[in-house]
């Protein structure tokens, strides 16, 4: 898969229309890498002139900040801002709501002002600009439920972009009882992804998976690599792997359009 880097672009004297911020999960996590590739296929298919930072990308510092390490966060932020501003980046898209939130909200007061999109917003724009058309026949009638990532939903009030895309797939979308602003967290946020949970009587991802299973879905759609991991683990715990799959919206679109 050919993915241009900002350094390549600069060497050719070109400026891409958007930077794809891959994020740590999207770069290293085997499950999340598939989401990155699916999104790149959509970008290529839509003739988007994009680039990634590649080896120049580093952690946004989101997890460090939520763990309480403001020093490490600001160090990461300033390093990244230096790189981004060096390439005169104006527009960023990412599949990770945590990177989306941090880049959009927390970098600006440190000198990094960018127009930042979650990939569901960006894809929505591609559709309204006529650059992409989603095939609504391949997944037609599939039972789908959508899990709102906290850092996309409550944190940034983005509820409709992912739902709009799901509806365009021609699927049957059923909401969970807790959805949109009252959605339950998957359990990964606030740096929980990187530690065991405190003592309790249940894992959060299992509770959220039960919410999803109540809708009797064939597909649990998400828009976050960490939610994806948590829900996938929840499905395994519930021994439902044979009936239910967890997919990112980008993957569903790539599948529908046979990319």
């Amino acid at each position: 898969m050919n993915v241009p880097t900002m350094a390549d672009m600069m060497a050719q004297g070109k400026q891409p229309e958007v930077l794809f911020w891959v994020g740590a999960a999207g770069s290293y996590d085997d499950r999340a890498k598939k989401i990155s590739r699916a999104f790149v296929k959509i970008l290529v298919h839509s003739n988007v002139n994009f680039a990634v930072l590649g080896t120049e990308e580093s952690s946004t510092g989101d997890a460090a900040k939520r763990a309480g390490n403001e020093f490490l966060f600001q160090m990461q932020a300033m390093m990244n801002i230096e790189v981004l501003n060096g390439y005169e980046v104006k527009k960023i898209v990412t599949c990770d709501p945590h990177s989306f939130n941090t880049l959009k909200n927390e970098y600006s007061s440190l000198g990094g002002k960018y127009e930042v999109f979650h990939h569901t917003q960006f894809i929505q724009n591609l559709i309204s600009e006529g650059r992409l058309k989603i095939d609504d026949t391949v997944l037609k009638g599939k039972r789908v439920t959508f899990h709102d990532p906290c850092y996309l939903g409550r944190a940034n009030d983005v509820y409709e972009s992912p739902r709009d895309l799901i509806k365009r797939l021609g699927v049957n979308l059923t909401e969970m009882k807790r959805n949109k602003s009252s959605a339950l967290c998957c359990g990964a946020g606030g740096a929980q992804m990187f530690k065991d949970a405190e003592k309790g009587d249940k894992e959060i991802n299992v509770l959220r998976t039960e919410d999803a299973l109540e809708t009797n879905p064939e597909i649990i759609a998400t828009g976050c690599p960490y939610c994806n991991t948590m829900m996938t683990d929840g499905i395994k715990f519930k021994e439902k792997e044979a009936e239910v799959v967890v997919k990112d919206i980008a993957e569903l679109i790539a599948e529908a359009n046979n990319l």
Partner: protein
Amino acid sequence: MHYLPNIVFALALAVGIGFFAMNIRKLFRNIKLGKNVNRTDKKSERIKNMLMIALGQSKMVKRPFSGFLHIIVYVGFIIINIEVLEIIIDGLFGTHRVFLGFLGNALYGFLIATFEILAVLVFVVVTIFWTRRNLSNIKRFLSKEMKGWPKRDGNIILYFEMVIMTLFLIMNASDTVFQQAGIGNPISQFIAPFFDGFSLASIHTIERTAWWFHILGILVFLNYLFYSKHLHILLAFPNTYFANLNPKGQFNNLESVTNEVKLMMDPDADPYAMPAEGTEEAVPEKFGASDVADLNWVQLLNAYTCTECGRCTSSCPASLTGKELSPRKIMMDTRDRLEEVGRNIDANKGTFVDDGKQLLNDYITPEELWACTSCNACVEECPVNIDPLSIIMDMRRYLVMEESAAPQELNSMMTNIENNGAPWQYSQQDRLNWTKEE
């Protein structure tokens, strides 16, 4: 002697309001112990929030049943208070139902009739609330932090409201002249027959007694607010006005840290620089919060505003899965500690004397703090825009930056970010490997 009741009334009013004012000053002083945070921008948006959320109860009705019932009590409370104005004038000047003369039979009758109907509605709703708190199995009222005083406090408030509403109706029912006029007594006319066999003098005594206990009850209730969770009826307004307006996912960037990080990254900075001659060497600012004075004043206002409804806790993923964390408890602990600090200041002639305690550990444990997923469900749920998450984050910052007391796995995660720019142990050189796989 003729003026004795008026004098007693004026005294009661002065003591009741004076004592309340004194306590409110104490409340302001305690809130001002918090750090400064600027919440004076975007005035129109703030006023809109206050009108929608506090006055308009827009977030209360997210849970329709309790929200609707709450609106009845709330509207009743505000409207019935018009009657208190009349009672105060009557009490001070020895008049009786002074508004009747001003407003005329029709309007006055309409007003009092409205009050009477609202009083009954409030009574009924308060009884439902009492049942929900004491007899129904509603989880958020049964949590650990609701045992003892918080539960009693909730019930006392409901009893106050029942008694005050009852006294208002008895007062009207035993007012023979008012009953004979037959205006504005849609409810009390059914209570009046109860006094039929009584002599005129004893009915009058009952009327006066109900009248006095009603207004004294209101004054006592006013003063009870300061000691109870019920302060929200006043503080909901400033609390929604001063609430955070940024996207909920945006956490503040600590300025003290920015300065240090800039210095660290500045190639021209002199690492051995001494403070300029004559300037006091500033004590470095504490990072994060371990006690109430490290929080900002809006967070402290939040703590006083919380009425312990528990909607936050009932939507918190950690609470729902049996973890120690309860966002409501975070707010209750913050207020308890703030009041303890306030009493300390009172006892020590205006200065705080170290009592060897702090909010961290003595009230809120690290286990609670580390259970938070920062999902913002508590912030979203709060009907008056309290932000428990910001307190949790400030306390985590203290744990990590001042005490290096993060859980081991988080330390590994942070070491990885420091060394290879990712929370996992992968080389930054492998950042593009995903493009080469399928």
